């Protein structure tokens, strides 16, 4: 009796899980479908509709997407490099040094998890105008490079590294920076990978702040470029907009499909600690 009800229960769960899964991919599948078919099929589902790449060509030619991609690439690289540098040093200080004000400063770092630069757009814009950085890529990056989340994550990782390794390296004559470079950073590689993936996908997708602080083709990242492109809604076909949409999310999506396991594990690792 229980075995039958158990099997029934299990199959019911499988069906529900699949139904939700199908529902969840539907929007994306539909966008892919329209992007690869002529505009005439965008509201008409036909399994044998001809496949075309024309929508992608049209979108690519209609707006300077190549430049937008370059901007986004520079942006995420800049942010990631600065975050790794700043967060590593700060995390090392919090994890292994005793100094007055440590707890207060750490609380201030954690405060950034609540009071994020995303919310302080008005004042940060004023700062950028004061620094004469409006409409530059560094202006998009600067508010995010000292990441409270990154510092916290790396500190937690550094604290799990046995002190004996640290002391052994010091006995061999390594300086405090040498110890960081030769002991802590190599052992924290998985955390760097996890944080890197989270950071890149976050800043690739970021929109509001770049929208505010950029106003030219030379600085706009793809998200802002896409919104500019699709808001001139006169005459652009849906299939072309969908092609542009897929294009902007494409690199991240492909990377995700290829490295699915690492992605999921990275987000998990970034989340639990």
């Amino acid at each position, binding site marked *: 009796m229980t075995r039958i009800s158990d099997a029934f229960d299990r199959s019911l*769960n499988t069906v529900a899980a699949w139904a939700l899964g199908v529902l969840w991919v539907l929007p994306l599948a539909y966008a892919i479908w329209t992007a690869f078919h002529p505009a005439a099929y965008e509201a008409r589902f036909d399994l044998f509709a001809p496949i075309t790449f024309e929508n992608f060509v049209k979108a690519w030619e209609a707006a300077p997407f190549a430049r937008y991609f370059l901007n986004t690439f520079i942006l995420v690289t800049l942010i990631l490099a600065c975050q790794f540098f*700043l967060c590593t040093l700060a995390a090392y200080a919090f994890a292994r040094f005793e100094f007055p004000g440590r707890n207060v400063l750490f609380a201030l770092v954690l405060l950034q998890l609540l009071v994020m630069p995303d919310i302080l757009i008005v004042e940060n814009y004023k700062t950028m105008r004061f620094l004469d950085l409006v409409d530059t890529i560094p202006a998009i990056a600067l508010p995010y490079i000292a990441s409270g989340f990154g510092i916290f994550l790396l500190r937690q990782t550094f604290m799990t590294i046995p002190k004996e390794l640290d002391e052994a390296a010091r006995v061999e004559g390594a300086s405090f920076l040498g110890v960081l470079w030769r002991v802590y950073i190599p052992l924290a590689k998985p955390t760097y990978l996890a944080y890197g993936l989270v950071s890149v996908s976050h800043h690739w997708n970021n929109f509001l702040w770049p929208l505010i602080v950029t106003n030219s083709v030379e600085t706009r990242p793809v998200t802002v470029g896409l919104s500019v492109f699709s808001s001139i809604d006169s005459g652009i076909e849906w299939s072309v907009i969908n092609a542009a949409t897929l294009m902007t999310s494409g690199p991240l999506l492909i990377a995700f499909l290829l490295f699915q396991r690492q992605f999921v594990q990275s987000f998990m690792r970034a989340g639990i600690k």
Partner: protein
Amino acid sequence: MKATRFKRDWIHGWLLLLPAMVFLFAFTHIPAVTTLINSFYSTPRGQRPARFLGLDNYERMLADPVFWKVLWNNLWFALGTIPLSIALAIAMALWVNDKLAGRGFVRMAYFTPTVLPLIAVANIWLFFYTPGFGLFDQLTRGLFGWPASNYLGDPDTALNAIIVVTVWKEAGFFMIFYLAALQAIPVSLKEAAQIEGAGRWTIFWRITFPLLMPTTLFVSINAVINSFRLVDHIFILTDGGPDNASSLLLFYIYETAFRYWETGYAATLTVALLVLLSLLAIGQFFLFDRKVHYK
């Protein structure tokens, strides 16, 4: 010897922290303080510098119907998105954690929206919601013979339409945290319960769900912050309209500051947002604190 070691530790610690702290203060702490200061001043215009207004901006805010409107919208938005996406996230995590046929596909399906930019997500859904030939209208016409409806253009449905998009985007993200938590629960607990004759439902409510409480606290704090922070899709889907029916607090701050250039009043609105966020974070912490079972 000991003393000099300490002194050197101090200096090393401070030096290591210095670069990060400079940027942290420059773009988080100082702006937060100047926001508070500027909220008491008028907006400087051209030759006219900012004047001290006292509480005028706050009085204006309390009398501003749009402020109350977006505040209510935001609360509805939070209530509509958070419990639903957390419930879905738990269900997703339980399913994906189980031995399920085609688990890889299902997990990918749940998680994919998370890697898409919110702007791209909005574009995809905008097409869904298009009156007449969008997918929703085609489905409802085909299945129930309903007439075309403008989900995003109708003040009654615009916010709900945005809630649907947000739940779709966020549930898979939260699933990851639950998945991690589920994998940390010892199997022996479940087995013991099974020997005692407990059903799956009982096991979930008596064992799994309580053990997931710390995750729920973490996820819900994240979700609350997100519900005040993520407004990207509004730009594409409704632009806050019709008549602010789908505008949220941060979107209103953006409009006030960068469309009407009223930075003084925008600072006041930002203070309201910061106060609200802090209260919610503290409140949640205490609410959950009694129920959370730490290991």
